[in-house]
């Protein structure tokens, strides 16, 4: 990995943006956890803590008009694709000004205007949908790409296999990003597949496969960029496996007791934010002072967004009937 080259290519401003997005995701998830456990936030939570490099590295290699599809764990992808903190927080609080007017909730964060369809709470289900998005680009002769994010758990779903095969035979511009965080809910991926690397499955579909270090945002960026360039120029899809780890439980109050301490420590030593900080300091993009400044700004932004979410207006109960159909009222 030639860090000098990629750092030069990305430039100071973009590198700082990426760093700031990673810090935002980390702090956002910490704040949400606190609010949820205190009982101040309704619904459920699925957190992205530890995996920040994946969302940020992938989205840094995309254009605004490219489309991403996320999962039940959408906050990291949403921040990386440019959704506002306020629209996310208002949605988490079930408010009218949320990104889905309070109709989606924690697992369906998204905003098509920012190039992110709503998060999908059925494991693997976004995979064939993303193939359809990419097919639309191909039929309309648009030079856009689609990215599907999913976890290791999704790779045993029928939708994964059908989606990858369909993408391959139609040669559509899609990148399948498998964030292998080692666990599907509480089940270790090692227990449910017999191969060492998920990326091996790409061969079964005659598709290009690649692996990236999901704790190194610059590696993720480079691997994604290569896949995106191929897809955009009509050279077909890629399955990109990113090795990563979630520091938190699967959802809600899950204390992740199924992960060993050795495993947790191994991954925390590779922490993506600390690793990126080191590189940026060494390359004189950031110093201690600037880092503190960013952390403080992000803290303030999140506090402001939380306040906004809490104070935003509730939807009217009768709005339940809206947005089911476009040109017809819901029959009662």
């Amino acid at each position: 990995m030639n860090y000098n080259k990629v750092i030069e290519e990305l430039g100071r401003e973009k590198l700082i943006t990426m760093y700031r997005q990673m810090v935002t995701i980390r702090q956002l998830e910490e704040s949400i956890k606190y609010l949820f456990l205190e009982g101040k936030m309704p619904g459920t939570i699925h957190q992205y803590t530890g995996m920040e490099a994946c969302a940020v590295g992938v989205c840094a290699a995309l254009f605004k008009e490219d489309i991403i599809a996320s999962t039940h764990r959408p906050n990291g992808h949403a921040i990386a694709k440019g959704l506002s903190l306020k629209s996310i927080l208002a949605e988490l609080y079930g408010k009218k000004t949320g990104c889905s007017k309070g109709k989606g909730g924690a697992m369906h964060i998204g905003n098509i205007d920012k190039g992110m369809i709503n998060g999908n709470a059925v494991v693997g289900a976004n995979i064939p949908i993303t193939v359809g998005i990419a097919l639309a680009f191909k039929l309309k002769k648009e030079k856009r790409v689609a990215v599907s994010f999913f976890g290791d758990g999704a790779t045993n779903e029928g939708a994964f296999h059908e989606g990858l095969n369909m993408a391959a035979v139609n040669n559509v511009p899609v990148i399948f990003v498998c964030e292998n965080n080692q666990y599907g809910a509480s089940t270790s991926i090692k227990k449910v597949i017999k191969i060492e690397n998920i990326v091996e499955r790409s061969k079964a579909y005659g598709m290009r496969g690649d692996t990236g270090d999901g704790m190194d945002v610059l590696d993720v960026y480079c691997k994604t960029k290569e896949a995106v360039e191929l897809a955009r120029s009509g050279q077909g899809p890629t399955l990109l496996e990113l090795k990563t780890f979630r520091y938190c439980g699967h959802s809600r109050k899950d204390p992740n007791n199924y992960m060993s301490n050795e495993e947790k420590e191994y991954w925390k030593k590779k922490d993506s934010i600390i690793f990126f900080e080191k590189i940026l300091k060494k390359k004189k993009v950031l110093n201690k002072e600037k880092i503190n400044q960013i952390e403080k700004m992000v803290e303030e932004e999140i506090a402001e967004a939380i306040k906004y979410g809490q104070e935003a207006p509730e939807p009217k109960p009768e709005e339940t009937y809206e947005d089911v159909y476009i040109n017809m009222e819901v029959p009662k």
Partner: protein
Amino acid sequence: MRLSLAEALRMAIHDEMKRDSSVFCIGEDIGISGGYGGAFTVTLGLEKDFRERIVDTPISEIAIFGVACGAAMMGMRPIADVEYGDFLFCAMDQIVNQIAKVRYMSGGKLKVPVVMRAPVGVTGRGAQHAQNLETYFLSCPGIKLVAPATAYDAVGLLRAAVRDDDPVMIFEHKLLYGSKGPRQENGVLDASSEIPEEDYIVPIGKGIIRREGSSVTLIGSLMMMHYSLIAAEILAKEGIDCEVIDPRTLWPLDTELIFSSVMKTGRVAIVEESPKQGGIGAEIGMQIAENISDYLLAPIKRITAPNTPVPFAPVMENFYVPQPERIAAEVKKMIEEN
């Protein structure tokens, strides 16, 4: 121009694809040279004019409906096809959790104008190529359901479905297609129509009175509409004057038309080719009971298939499907008793 239902659908799909470059077809065996044009010849030959937009797929229903959903989000208007409606179950997540709910979960920002074509009907193929699946989707908000019983309505409803911004599922009966050549069926009924030149549509949500009458209202879709008409002729000889309603759209139901007919006749029988349990008759019957029960002279009647899977043996299959004679007998009994 007189066309069979399959020919009429083919013409309507061709015209929609010509009119709007965002319309495309996706499905199994739909555009294979030397093949059949879907299981029942509907898309036969369309690939000659629209090679890029007739997307032949693997046998892969999750992918077909997932791809249709994603493409529709990006402004395309897919017509997704399953060879037999029964295979919709393979794609149930994509249809019910995704296509039906995407708009809602996005707070109205996304739209998914997907047309889903599903051949249905009991046709000598046992239990898994035979079901009338309408009721499974009747309890799924977010999808409109249409069921054309004639070639004229097939054209009008297909056009309306393609131009609609919401997902629409079209149920087509295998014995009404009039498919020719190697895909011809036994036991078919003629559903062909004169198709006018003009660009008409049949509005979604509008039923039609197929036969006017005063003694009793029969409500049936697809094959059961045709059988109800035959039953009405049998009963006419005995002085019973049936009104036959074809709902054409199963969701949203044309309750205005149904209510006005039942208020006039005071009696109603709902005829279904599927089991009684949780059926269309349960929905229509309860709507009538909740809203206009004062007008009823007799209890609401359901004439349906038994609560069993579809059997194969021809004698059992004949027993399973409400035949015109059975419909007539049950209606006659209903009138004699009330």
